[in-house]
């Protein structure tokens, strides 16, 4: 079964600084990878996804992520964060050969942007 490790439970960063949220997944022949954001008391919103093709994926709100198959990583980056980026971020993996498009989530990383 797939598993996802988010290496940092909390990441504090100052406004306008760059940020990287780290995600590693257990190895598989093929995977689909996702980053979701969750604001307090809300559902999850998709930031970006990797299905195939270019390993650098661009998403909404200026976020991007790079798929690294050899390191089984899918780290999320933003060159300059805003206060409004304060939220919890979840990395998730899906096995395309598994019935039902099920997602396995990491434990989440809380991004705190300080002014």
């Amino acid at each position, binding site marked *: 079964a797939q598993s996802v490790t988010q290496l940092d439970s909390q990441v504090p960063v100052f406004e306008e600084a760059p940020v990287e949220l780290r995600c590693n997944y257990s190895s598989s022949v093929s995977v*689909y990878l*996702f980053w*979701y954001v969750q604001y307090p*008391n*809300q*559902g*999850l*919103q*998709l930031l970006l*996804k990797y*299905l195939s093709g270019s390993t650098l994926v661009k998403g909404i709100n200026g976020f991007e992520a790079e798929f690294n198959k050899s390191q089984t990583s899918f780290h999320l980056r933003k060159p300059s964060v805003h206060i409004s980026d304060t939220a919890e971020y*979840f990395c998730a993996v*899906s096995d*395309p050969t598994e*019935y*039902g*498009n*099920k*997602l396995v*989530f*990491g*434990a*989440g990383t809380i991004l705190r942007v300080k002014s």
Partner: protein
Amino acid sequence: DAMVIQNPRYQVTQFGKPVTLSCSQTLNHNVMYWYQQKSSQAPKLLFHYYDKDFNNEADTPDNFQSRRPNTSFCFLDIRSPGLGDAAMYLCATSGSGTVSYEQYFGPGTRLTVT
């Protein structure tokens, strides 16, 4: 706008009193999911419907049941809520056979058990 709707957003129930949470979607997706998310934890899949085909996760307690009367609606029934069932419950949908494979989430229902 096409979306996933959950009602109510906040639900308070008493220990042992059955409760039903509702989810509807206008995306015409054939897969619907229910997740439980406890405070400061990742969402945990309880079960999903692939059309009318119900799929329970192995570790989902029997206390949790689900119904899907049609494509648009799905319900989560908690037969005898315990204090440990207090959580955010998230509904999501996915269109199998599409190229996106992503899941679309509703805003969630926060359940309090008193």
